[in-house]
């Protein structure tokens, strides 16, 4: 067990969100999960237009409102107040999940409790006997959206790795994650396992490997 799991090392939450936003192409339809994923919307690079879907029934979700224009009937999937951009539209839940299940959303960014080297995701339940299971739309999102990005701290609060050979928690979906953005690195899920495509400033391959529960590969640009 590692003695230090300083979360200030590597990227901060905002930087993780910003790094993720770089990988979202102009014109994408994107669903953002609760937590750090929500912050991605603030960092879309200049010149790109991205449309955000929130599964409770809005396409064209805008930023949080000021207190005057807040409406308890206008919220996102995390039940936080949001706004609607010009060109937005509202629809009911079956139509909203038709967008998800029917492969119409391009990218989904989610949080994670665990990710396995084959891209299995666990983010809804610890499976503990007294856990109140709550799944929300997570299983629909990973089953229906082709590109699933995960943003997560590299380790748990107690310093345990979240990137593993196999998930020990109940799965949200099997082989669904494409890329993981942690505070330490950007990591692709490949047929050979986890592969580092970018390291956070000041973070070494070995440092990340020590905090990862599966062998890491590295993109050739870091390989010398």
């Amino acid at each position, binding site marked *: 067990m590692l003695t230090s799991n300083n979360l200030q090392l590597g990227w901060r939450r905002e930087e993780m969100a910003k790094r993720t936003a770089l990988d979202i192409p102009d014109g994408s339809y994107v669903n953002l999960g609760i937590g750090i994923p929500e912050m991605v919307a603030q960092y879309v690079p200049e010149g790109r237009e991205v449309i955000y879907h929130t599964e*409770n029934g809005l396409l064209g979700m805008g930023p949080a409102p000021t207190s005057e224009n807040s409406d308890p009937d206008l919220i996102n999937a995390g039940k936080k107040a949001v706004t609607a951009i010009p060109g937005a539209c509202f629809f009911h*839940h*079956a139509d909203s*999940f038709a967008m998800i299940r029917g492969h119409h959303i391009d990218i989904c960014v989610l949080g994670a409790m665990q990710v396995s080297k084959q891209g299995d995701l666990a983010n809804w339940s610890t499976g503990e006997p007294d856990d109140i299971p709550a799944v929300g739309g997570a299983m629909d999102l990973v089953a229906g959206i082709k590109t699933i990005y995960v943003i997560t701290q590299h380790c748990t609060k107690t310093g345990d790795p979240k990137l593993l050979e196999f998930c020990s928690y109940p799965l949200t*979906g099997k082989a669904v994650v494409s890329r993981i953005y942690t505070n330490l690195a950007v990591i692709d899920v490949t047929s050979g396992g986890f592969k580092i495509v970018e390291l956070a400033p000041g973070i070494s391959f070995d440092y990340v490997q020590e905090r990862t529960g599966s062998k890491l590969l590295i993109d050739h640009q870091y390989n010398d």
Partner: protein
Amino acid sequence: MIDKRIDSLTAAVADVFDGATIMIGGFGEAGSPIELIHALIDVRAKDLTVINNNTGSGHVGLAALIENGQVSKMICSYPRTLGSKVFPKLYRNGKIELELVPQGTLAERIRAGGAGIPAFFTATSVDTPLAAGKEHRHFNGRNHVMEYGLKADFALIKCKCADRYGNLTYNKTARNFAPIMAMAATKTIVQTGTLVEVDTIDPEIVVTPGIFVDRVIAISDPVQESKLIAEGMSYPC
């Protein structure tokens, strides 16, 4: 003459019987028909199966209905919202049953129930514990589970504007489950912010056609769940 207007909350839900299955609209407090839920507490129907995305917050609305011991089973996707205290306690004590359904599968099951589709296949939940015991089948090289249409004896929903035919429009994301629940229930009971004359709503913008609605009651100034919770209110007080 077709006139679905009704002016007593208690009368609106008076025929909800013990053991009924009830769909309740809303995603969190957005779209929650809180006055109708409180009326249901007043009429004391019990042993209810309730279908809602969540399990309510604080001690008002759906949480109060559960706390009042009227609900024996919840069918929902996310039973532990922030501020949800009532359900977790009862669930841990084995006092209430839970059928956990992924949110999109829940929506599609309700829509199927309303559209006369008894069962369908979806890839959602495959390879997870929620697919356990379900019939699996491959289509286009991918594994799917079979899910059943979901119907109810009653639906309680909230809308923005209604006419005497029961044509409805909604406000923003408060629409959520209401249009599909209206389709899937034998009796659909609606609380509306405004009641208008029958030629007021443009036929192009009706979201729920009146055919899916049985009763409409005007609640022009509904209470706001989060405000009640912030004030520490409970129902019945």
